[in-house]
């Protein structure tokens, strides 16, 4: 029994193809004016990594401050700004674009057998909007920051604080349009750009997951945009729409904001789930169990996701009946999520499992996402929510889903497709180590926070009662380990660009169309338009392909 499925070409003779999307044109302008979805994906990859490390540095400051019960590293006002900017940067500038704008951008056209996304110029525009928004956010941060939390809760954001709410709001408004354009592009591409034979139910589940996420981006983000416009108008002109003194209602802001921001968590997690499908299937050599159910569960999450927003507002004065209904609907979201987890487990069952790095990250995802998801049910239940909301329990819950889930999935996908994107393998052993370090560091950081939350430690305070210190020390120590876990990939992935082994077309022996072309791909992706004549994840088809290759060489 083999312990790996990696099959690389003979390193002494193999070369990275001379002509590929990276080498086709040279010079900075050829990148800045490119229409190629693969180049734009790389631009995005660099920019979101940059923002991830800014957000990560802010997280480090938060954990350092919380090492001791007093507020001693920074003033309490500064602490408010640090956690606000951490949330804003991580959510709008890392998590929302993370998988869709990089891996989705790169691989959706390839998986569909298309030459590019339907609207290449709009794709490039979306990156420029992202960069403009990012610069504006950094400007806001460096000229005083914002301290409303990432939620811009009214009336705090409109009447009480005197920080850069307007600049930051505009930055997110612009970043929102970047996200809308990405989602719009994906939907059009998936509808109109599929290769011959690529029916809806032959698409990889990665594409289905992105389709669902794109629906959310297109329908949800404009509502956030108008909510932020109203906040800016309320601050500048004093229009009164969120001002109780003039008859407005601050809760209206919450409704509009969470109408986007709850679906936004599915924008963040669904593409990650898409990655897990590809990885689990490839490294257990089996078709994803219950393909159709998994495909529809993505769409179901997108649909249900629009009808649960008020569970963020249980303690904010919505009516008891609304709480009842939204609590019930929230439970419903657990169903399609569980469908996915169970189907992945069944995919593993009797599969030929190997433990390459992407698979390790995926296992991390499955475990941590399950914990994060189940604690979400605690919070969806109004009785426990009233006790747990605004405590560290909530912080731990969404970090389990977002960091333990989405970030693990992002790293799984990045390692999985790295050979295709760059033509070179990452070093296997050290990356397996990084995956394990990340997992351990993550649990050390965030598991204590569940306990802290249950004990009643509130979120968003720089100081806390001394009896909570031991768990906070654990959490800070874990964050240090986690930081190492995130630095390692940056180092060895950069190293691998030059020194990594030559990957060849299909190092994992995976079935997707993206693996049936050279690595790194040509600008046009395929020499001629591929014809899809088999189901997704059809490993028998792949075997037959290989037999034919051998026959023709012989």
């Amino acid at each position, binding site marked *: 029994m083999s312990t790996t499925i990696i099959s690389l070409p003979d390193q002494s003779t193999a070369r990275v193809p001379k002509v590929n999307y990276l080498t086709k044109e040279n010079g900075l302008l050829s990148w800045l004016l490119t229409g190629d979805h693969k180049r734009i994906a790389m631009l995005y990859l660099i920019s979101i990594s940059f923002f991830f490390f800014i957000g990560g540095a802010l997280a480090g400051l938060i954990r350092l401050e919380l090492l001791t019960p007093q507020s001693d590293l920074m003033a309490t006002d500064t602490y408010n700004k640090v956690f606000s900017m951490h949330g804003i940067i991580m959510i709008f500038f890392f998590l929302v674009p993370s998988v869709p704008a990089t891996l989705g951008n790169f691989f959706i056209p390839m998986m569909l057998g*298309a030459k590019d996304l339907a609207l290449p110029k709009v794709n490039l525009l979306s990156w420029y909007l992202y960069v403009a928004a990012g610069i504006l956010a950094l400007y806001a941060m460096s000229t005083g920051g914002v301290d409303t939390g990432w939620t811009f809760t009214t009336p705090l954001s409109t009447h009480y604080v005197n920080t850069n709410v307007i600049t930051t709001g505009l930055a997110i408004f612009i970043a929102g349009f970047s996200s809308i354009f990405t989602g719009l592009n994906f939907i059009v591409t998936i509808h109109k750009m599929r290769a011959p034979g690529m029916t809806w139910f032959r698409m990889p589940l990665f594409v289905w997951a992105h389709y669902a996420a794109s629906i959310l981006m297109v329908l949800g983000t*404009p509502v956030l945009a*108008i909510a932020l416009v*109203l906040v800016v108008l309320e601050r500048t*002109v004093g229009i009164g729409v969120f001002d109780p003194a*003039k008859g407005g209602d601050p809760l*209206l802001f919450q409704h509009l904001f969470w109408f986007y921001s709850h679906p936004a968590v599915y924008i963040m997690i669904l593409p990650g789930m898409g990655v897990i499908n590809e990885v689990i299937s490839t490294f257990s050599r089996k078709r994803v169990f219950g393909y159709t159910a998994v495909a529809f569960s993505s769409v179901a999450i997108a649909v249900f996701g629009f009808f649960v927003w008020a569970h963020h507002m249980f303690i904010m004065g919505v009516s008891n009946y609304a709480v009842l209904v939204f609590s019930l609907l929230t439970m419903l979201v657990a169903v399609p999520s569980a469908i996915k987890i169970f189907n992945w487990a069944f995919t593993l069952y009797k599969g030929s499992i190997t433990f390459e790095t992407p698979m390790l990250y995926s296992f991390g995802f499955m475990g941590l996402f399950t914990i994060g998801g189940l604690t979400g049910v605690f919070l969806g239940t109004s009785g426990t929510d009233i006790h747990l909301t605004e405590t560290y329990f909530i912080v731990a819950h969404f970090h389990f889903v977002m960091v333990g889930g989405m970030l693990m999935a992002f790293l799984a996908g990045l390692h999985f497709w790295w050979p295709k994107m760059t033509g070179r393998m990452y070093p296997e052993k050290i990356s397996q180590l990084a995956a394990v370090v990340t997992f351990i560091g993550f649990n050390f950081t965030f598991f204590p926070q569940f306990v802290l939350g249950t004990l009643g430690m509130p979120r968003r305070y720089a100081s806390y009662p001394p009896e909570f210190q031991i768990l906070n020390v654990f959490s800070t120590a874990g964050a240090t380990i986690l930081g190492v876990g995130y630095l390692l990939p940056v180092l060895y992935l950069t190293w691998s660009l030059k020194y990594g082994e030559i990957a060849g077309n299909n190092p994992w022996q995976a079935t997707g169309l993206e693996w049936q072309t050279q690595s790194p791909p040509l600008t*046009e992706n395929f020499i001629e*338009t591929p014809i899809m004549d088999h189901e997704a994840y059809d490993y028998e088809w792949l075997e037959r392909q290989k037999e034919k290759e051998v026959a023709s060489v012989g």
Partner: protein
Amino acid sequence: MSDSPVITQGALEAAHHEHPPYQRHHFETIGQQNDATNFAMWLFLLTEIMFFGGLFTAYLIYRNWYYPAFVAASHQLNIVWGSANTAVLISSSFTMAMGVWCAETRRKSGLVLALVLTFLLGLVFLGIKTIEYSEKIEKHHVPGFHYSIQSFVNPASDPVAAAYGDKPLALDMAGKTELYFFLYFAMTGMHALHMIIGIAILGYMIFRARAGAYTSGHVTFVENFGLYWHFVDIVWIFLFPLLYLISRHQ
């Protein structure tokens, strides 16, 4: 006889590889390109609906809460100008539709004329809107800028309110008229902003149409802009009754 199928085959292939200059490289056929861009435009309009949807929601809620204030405040809108603007906008949609038809049937001068007319009607709409806005400014009905509730606590002092026979509102309810005017300005302002963007694009299109850009078979841009223009028109078709009409006789 035996050669002819081969020739046909070759001709077909030549036809297949011969793309019109406006076909982007990543599309297989021009039909696919048109389908994709049209579909993208519809999706974009969907996001616009969601964008305006936030404002309509706010309107719905506050109208229910502060019904008397909304009735009294809506009496202040000028129905003559509002109706005129509706007529102007519907006419502009007609001229725009004519423009799309001219582009499809390759009538260059017809297209330029239609676009110019649409452009002018758009400007007329904005002009009338300016008159209406300046009326509001004169009466201090602009929320946030020295807003005055005089017309609502003392309707007899205001000729418009007096003409409707409005009853004086209690002080706190009269204050809520500011919300109505905010929603009025936000919704019509956002609509006007879309008009301004549309007019700017129209200007560019007139310039390009005179050079014959849209009458050589590539009409997607005109078509998609037409969709946008009609969408902006339809937004007004909802705004006009909600803001001007439904409280006329109360």
